Structures are given as C-alpha cells and as structure tokens.
C-alpha cells in the first residue's frame, strides 16, 4: 500500500477541537489571574517568605524571648516524646501519620484538649469530620466538647485561603489540622492550585504563624494529621518534610496489637521511643508509662552492657596476655 505524499496543506480544525483549545486557554488565563491576585492579596509575612531577599543569619545576633523555649505541658507521659524538656515545644510543626483506626484523631484531640485545660489557646481545624460527626464523638470523649473548632467543609464556596487566614488571625498556641491533605485538597479544588502550590501556601502560612505573625503574637505550633499511602508511607513533598519539626507515627504493635506512638523524626526530642496507649471508653487516652520506662531501662541496660563488653576485652587481654608481654620485655 502506498502512502500519500504530504501536500504541505493543514487539515482544517474541527469545531470541537477549536472549542477545547479555547476553553484550555481561558482556564489558564483564569489560573494565572488567580495566582497573581493571591500574590497581591497574600498576608504580608507570607509574601515576605516568598519574595524575601537572601539574608545570612548569625545566631548570636538573634534574640528570642526565653518563654519561647518553655514547652507546653499536657501533663501526660506523651510530653516526654515531644521534647527533651517534656512538653509540646512552641513554634514547631509536627506531622502525625498512622495506621487506619489506630486513633490519630482521638490522640491528637486528646493532646489538644489537655493543652487547652492547661490554659493554652488552641484551635482544631476539622476538614474530615462535620459537626454531626464530632457531636457523636464528643458524647464519648466529653473533654473534646470545649475545643474551638473550624469545620472547613462549611466554607466550600468561600476562598479557603481567606477562611484559614481569618481563622488563624487572632493567634493560637496550638493548632491541630485534621487532615493536612484534606485542607490542601480544598485549596487545590477551589483555587485551581497545583498540589505543590497548595502545599506551599499551607506551609508558608504555618511558618508565618510559627514566627508569631498574628494578632496575639503567639508562636503557634501546628500538629497536622497527614495521610499515608497504602504502604503506610508519608504523603508530601520534600518541602513539607524539611519544614516539619517532628514526624509522629501511631502504629499497631505487630505482636500484641496494642497501639503506640513513636517519633521517627524529632528535632526537639527523642526518636524511636515507643509510648503504648489505649483508648478508654470514658474518653481519655491512657499512656502505658510503665512499659515506656521498661523499654527505656532495657535500652539503658543494653547500652551499659555493650560498653562493659568492650572494656572487659582489654582487661581480659591485660590479665591473660599482658603479664607475658611484660615478662618478655
């Protein structure tokens, strides 16, 4: 079969194709306009993070109030996982991931409630549950009833960035986001942002509030529940990972089926130390600090033993081979 020779003339475009291209151009123009508008309207501090000129910092020239380094105590054993000093540190961002049904929302809301009871100003941003969902939840966990909650699902038709900025504007000590991915999805959907763009917006907003850029000047700490892949791996870009102070994982113990918390990354506290917990019927998270101490003691004992084994080897050599060498010399 012979092919037709090219004639150099274009085939006329169908009306459907023309219309599709026109629509794509129109959407691209809208997105560009929205992004420009976002950059103009953006919170000045967030903007400063985006377009900030390069600045080299010497830490000795930096000044922060001492109070910034006093962690916020929940009064529960979990304090010793969050920071070496004991308590949730200020101006930090913690990501929380975990197995389905392990109690991510319950544990994080319990931490938030305990901090609220200790007198800290807290906010819960719920992007997964509705008022009705949480009503049932609070019946079981009464202490969650006193939390200030923003249900983002109730603002589907609004600009999510304005909703978040306005909600955070008064300033909070701790903000819990459930979940980071859902909030990010809202931004993507309404503002037609890319995944990276929406994540960047959220991270910049968190960093801004970490620095105390809000009406109360509070250095906010964020605890954000993040989704994981089917393989249990954290979903997020490197930017998110880099701006995360700690990665808290909630897992089921394979042998006993009991739940535990563990920091796989923590710039402020210990890592890979497991704190087992159980969810009580009456609405509280019970931490097994005895088991935690046992694990700690076991770890210490092993470390001591390793050191001793090394030092004993040289004593052994001195006792058995040392005298001979001395005699020979």
């Amino acid at each position, binding site marked *: 079969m012979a092919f037709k020779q090219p004639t150099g003339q274009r085939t006329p475009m169908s009306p459907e194709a023309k219309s599709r291209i026109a629509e794509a151009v129109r959407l691209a123009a809208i997105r560009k306009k929205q992004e420009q508008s976002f950059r103009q309207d953006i919170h000045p501090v967030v903007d400063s993070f985006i377009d900030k000129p390069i600045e080299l910092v010497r830490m000795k020239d930096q000044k922060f109030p001492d109070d910034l380094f006093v962690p916020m105590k929940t009064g529960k054993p979990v304090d010793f996982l969050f920071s070496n000093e004991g308590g949730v540190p200020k101006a930090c961002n913690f990501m929380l991931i975990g197995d389905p049904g392990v109690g991510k929302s319950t544990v994080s809301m319990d931490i938030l409630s305990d901090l609220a009871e200790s007198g800290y100003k807290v906010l819960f941003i719920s992007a997964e549950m509705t008022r009705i969902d949480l009503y049932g939840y609070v019946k079981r966990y009464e202490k969650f009833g006193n939390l200030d909650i923003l249900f983002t699902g109730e603002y589907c038709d609004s600009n999510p960035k304005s909703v978040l900025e306005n909600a955070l504007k008064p300033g909070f000590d701790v903000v819990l986001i459930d979940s980071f991915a859902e909030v990010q999805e809202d931004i993507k959907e309404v503002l037609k942002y890319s995944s990276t763009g929406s994540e960047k917006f959220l991270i910049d907003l968190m960093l801004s509030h970490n620095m105390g850029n809000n009406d109360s000047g509070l250095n906010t700490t964020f605890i954000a529940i993040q989704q994981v892949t089917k393989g249990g791996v954290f979903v997020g870009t490197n930017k998110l990972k880099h701006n995360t102070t700690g990665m808290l994982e909630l897992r089921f113990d394979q042998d006993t089926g009991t739940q535990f918390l563990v920091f796989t990354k923590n710039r402020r506290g210990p890592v890979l130390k497991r704190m087992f917990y159980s969810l009580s019927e009456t609405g509280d998270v019970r931490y097994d600090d005895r088991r935690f101490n046992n694990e700690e*003691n*076991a770890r210490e*004992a092993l470390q*001591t033993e390793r050191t001793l*084994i090394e030092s004993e*080897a040289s004593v*052994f050599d001195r*006792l058995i081979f040392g005298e*001979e060498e001395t005699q020979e010399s």
Partner: protein
Amino acid sequence: MKQFTTISQSLFDERAREAEKKTPIRREFGLRDIEVINSETLTLDGKHVGMSNEAFKNFCKIVGLPVGFDKTFSSAFGDKARQQLVNRLKVAAQAKGNSSVSIVLNPETKKIIAVQKDPRDLVSNQSFLESTTRMINRFDLEVSDFSVSDDGSVVINTASPKNAWGIQGLKDEDHFGGISFSNSPNNGFQVSPFLYRLVCANGMIGKSFSETMQLGQMDQMNLLKFNENLEALAKRGFIPEKFEERVRLAMNTRASLAEMEHAHGRIISVSDADVKEIESWIPYQQTKASFFKSGVDVNTLTTNQMKGAKTGMTIWEMINSITHFATHDNGFKMKSFNRRTLQTESSRILCDNFDMANLIASPF
C-alpha cells in the same frame, strides 16, 4: 513469731562492690585461635589458660559434642584422642559458620569459668545490680540476704513484708513472698519467687516453681519479656501459682526413707555439722533405728525399696527443717552461698513428685 530481718544499706553497698569486683569478664575469640589441650586447659592465641570443668562442658556443647560422651570417649580412647576429637569438631563448627565464642574469665583466679556463644549470654554484675535495685525499689521489696561467691555468682533474696498471705484453713502457714535474684556465669540472670514463712522466719528460694525466669541473651525483647513476667508475679503478690496446692499435698504426705536420706545428705554436704547434730532437723538415724527395731535392715534395701519406706516425717516438716537450717545461724559453719543452695533445694523437693504421693490403697 520471729522477726523478718533485713540487711543494712552499708552491707548492701559493701556486697555490691564485692560483686562488681568479682564480676566475670568476657572476651570474644575466633574458634581458630582456640586449641583444647585437655579438659582443664586450652590455649588462647597460643597462651595456655586453665579452665573449669563446666567451661570445658560448655565448649564441648558449642562444638557439638554431647555432654557425657567426651568422658566415654576419653575412657575408651584416651585423653589425647579426646583432645583431637574436640579440636576436629571445633574445625567442623567453624565450617558451619560458628566462627567465634565468648570466653568468660574469673579475674581473680584467671581461670576460664564458662564458654558461651555470645558475650551477651552473660549479664555483668553491674547491669544485674542496676536492674535488681530498680526492681527492689519499684516493688518496694526488703533485702534479707545478699551473697557473692568466689566465681562472681550473686544471689539477692528479697521479700515484700507488706503483702502477707495465709493458706486458708492452715494454722501457722502465713507467708510473704518476694523475689530471689541471681546471676551466675553458667545460669545467667534468673529471678525466682522467694517465700518467707512467718512462724519460723524460714526462707525458701522457689527456683522450681514455673514462675522462675531466666533472662537468656541480653537483648531488648528478652529484657522486656523478663520485666513483664516479673510484673505479673508482683501483681499476684509474689505467690507462686502452685504453692498452696503443693503445701497442702506436702503436709499430707509422709517422706520416704530415700527422701529423708537425700535431705540429710544435702545438709551434711554443705555444712560442718555431723550426722548426730543434724538429727534435730532431719531424724534420719532415729528413723533408721525404728526400721531396724521393726525387723527391716535398711542397709540392704534397694533404691526403690527406700522410696517405698514410709517415715514418720511429712514432706512439709522436712522442707521446713531444711529451710530452717539454711536460714538461721545454728552455730555451724556454712558458706552463705550454700545456704542459698539449701533454700533452693527445699523448693525443688516441694515441686518434685513425692515418693509417697502416688500410693494406691490395696483392695486386698
């Protein structure tokens, strides 16, 4: 009722220093650097070092020579052949991938007292004391005894006087429990229930009860399991599960002549008391005389006949005699480590099958 006595903090500290000083030391050696000369000596990198019989047995076991077989082999083919066999097996073990062993040395005698697969098979006295002190504080235990033997083995007996308990319906059977902690080169870190009988202030180390635990190799999982089991025992007030049942049975079962002879022999072997002096605790001679009087020459009895000869003493009375002899200063010379041996032996007797327990009433 006698007073439960505890040791002072200064004595505890003194014993702890002694235990740390005597703690056996470990070093890993490649099997190729070890050569067995005979059952008492081996060479490490060409240097002759003495070893205990136990250490030789350990080494034989590691290279795959069944315990006891080496003796048979030695008597048949001589020491030289045995040495060659052990060294050949060592080469075979190397080929299987067992490239190194941990040699445990007594720092004072410079003699090898154990050979183990891994240095972590032995727990140093320092770690043992740290763990034990932590448990003593956690469970609010009182230390009644702390002994250190020449090979660095340590035994610490503790009790919890706040948790006294009795056996329902039995007079004078009020006890309180506790834990006996021990660490030795050959048995490792062990914990056993410790039982203290209030009426006579006798102590028993319950190594034969199922609650006895051995740490095994020192790793995270073993340590955690060890702690969990210990907590479970503490929750039960340190009462071994089968204790009450065994006591009732021991009270209702007479000791056989064989059992009495054994108990008598054990006391004699660990003290300087003579046969007559021990009669106050185990009336063995008196019992034998009674058999003679009734026309039975006990010297001609077979082992099984001895097991079938009923005495006038119950097992429980016999056990209390042993624990009394072991716990109190009766004016005889006895090393503290031997006292612990007797206290352990008493629980073995309590947990073992009694000779007279399975007698069947004859219908004829």
